[in-house]
């Protein structure tokens, strides 16, 4: 698969295009939140408590009269932080371990893969829940927990890539010609495995946001008054009967961003023609 053919296939995919546009919108919101937000996301305004959507506050106000649109814009930062850092942790550790397992085989391979299997032996949300339970609540601990959770996925993918690249004759030839192992890994194995890793990263970021906001909903994530979509939803839950907008909009934001990531992930996967 050459780079140009990949981009051509990806550009033809309308769903993926929608995903990219949605993603760009959310990214803009996160980066320019201070400029875009109509109000201070943490300023309470008691004349606006549970105010429904109106001209004064487009998405309404929450139980402390804080502007929901502003909180959603700032909340995008927390979600991007969770998505980016968890996948970075998982990808770096996973790729490294997968390379070791695939390249050296034998005992190294057996130990790494059995450990990965074991982590996959527990339902994933529960693993994250237990890790946060042990470390204590907070956004940083949520990131660590979800990051660890996704390591086995990258290990498996990377190991499979290494095994398939290692079969190539040119790799065998290079080894026979005396190329050193690190050179083979960094110049041949890694570049070939990059594309599926990118697809997995997109899909995993969506899951990371869902799990992260789920932990936030349970009160284990970002602590008040920091704006985080899951926590906002859980605050709005109490006022569901009288002010449903407080819970509705943060949930829509989560869904929108995760839809974008899933469409991108699907598009990249289809353009690459790999199964993940």
């Amino acid at each position, binding site marked *: 698969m050459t780079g140009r053919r990949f981009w051509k296939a990806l550009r033809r995919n309308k*769903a993926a295009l929608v995903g990219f546009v949605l993603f760009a919108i959310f990214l803009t919101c996160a980066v320019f939140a201070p400029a875009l937000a109509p109000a201070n996301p943490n300023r309470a305004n008691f004349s606006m408590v549970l105010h429904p959507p109106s001209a004064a506050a487009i998405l309404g106000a929450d139980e402390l009269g804080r502007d929901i649109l502003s909180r959603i814009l700032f909340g995008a930062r927390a979600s991007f932080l969770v998505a980016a850092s968890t996948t970075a942790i998982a990808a770096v550790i996973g790729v490294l371990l997968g390379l070791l397992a695939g390249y050296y085989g034998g005992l190294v391979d057996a130990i790494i893969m059995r450990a990965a*299997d*074991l982590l996959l*032996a*527990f*339902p*994933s*949300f*529960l693993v994250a*829940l*237990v890790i*946060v*339970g*042990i*470390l*204590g609540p907070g956004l940083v601990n949520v990131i660590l927990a979800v990051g660890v959770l996704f390591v086995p996925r990258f290990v498996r993918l990377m190991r499979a890539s290494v095994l398939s690249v290692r079969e190539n004759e040119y790799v065998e030839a290079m080894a026979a010609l005396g190329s050193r192992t690190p050179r083979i890994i960094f110049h041949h194995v890694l570049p070939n495995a990059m594309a599926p890793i990118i697809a997995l990263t997109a899909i995993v970021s*969506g899951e990371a946001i*869902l799990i992260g*906001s*789920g932990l936030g*909903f*349970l*009160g*284990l994530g970002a602590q008040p008054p920091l704006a985080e979509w*899951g926590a906002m*939803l*859980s605050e*709005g*839950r109490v006022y*569901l*009967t009288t002010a*449903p907008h407080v*819970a*509705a909009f*943060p*949930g*829509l934001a*989560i*869904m929108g961003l*995760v*839809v974008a990531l*899933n*469409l991108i992930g699907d598009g990249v996967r289809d353009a690459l023609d790999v199964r993940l």
Partner: protein
Amino acid sequence: MLRLLFYRVLGLAVILVLVSVISFSITYVVPGDVALVIAGPGASQASIEKIRSDLLLDEPFLVRYGTWLGSVMRGDLGASAITRQPVAEIVGFRLVNTMKLALAGIVLAIVLGIALGLVAALYRNSLVDYGAMLVSVLGISAPVFWVGLMLIYVFSVRLRWLPITDQGGVAHLILPAITIGMYSVAVIARVTRFNLLEVLGRDYIRTAKAKGASTARMSLKHALKNALIPVVTVIGLQFGYLMGGAVLTETVFAYPGIGRLFADVVFTRDFPVMQILMLLLAAIFAVTNFLVDISYALLDPRIRHA
């Protein structure tokens, strides 16, 4: 088949042993003194010592693990560190409740998911297909807890069709089952569509078509049977996902199951209950995967005879 069964049972046994070690070991990785953590701030020295001796905290790992596993095997699941209530009593009826919920969710997911995937594949690239796939993308992207809250708002608060919380009977299961099953509906629909399209493109389907089999008959009889094999694996995995999804769904609906219990003990740091719940949930997950592996082999002769 017997050999395969032997290796699968062996694999299951190894996983269960390792899972029990991990579940037991969580008290070792808690930062600080477990007895202090459980007792909470301001506890007396005597109560801290009591917890320490109850949990055998000063004994070596193997002694503690052996004692713990031994009593679990004998059916003695210990007692909550907080309420002192026996764990079996706390977990028992909640486990039954969660099983009911998970079962309702998975049945819904299988029926709706396969139907959606089938229709999408049969009318490929039509509006029906796009609609079904849109629903499934939304299904895998929507946060469980938000879907639950919105369902409560629409059906219980506005329309007043269904009760909000547990009143017994079937009605109270409907909204939680939809909430917990929604993600699985979407995943099963995607996998069904993908595999059906792949199978429909194969030679034997074209042969059947050439022999005059009608499209509907063909897709149901020949294609579906073959396309469903990978779907079985996904259903098994989804059951494990439902166990995790139960935490959020049960919290939203104030449903008395082990999911909500799990979230509660994470908050209260009730480690004896947490250990049993981890062991229990991982065991359910492992046994489900084992059953899926076996049924996979039964459905696919290529694996059975390998």
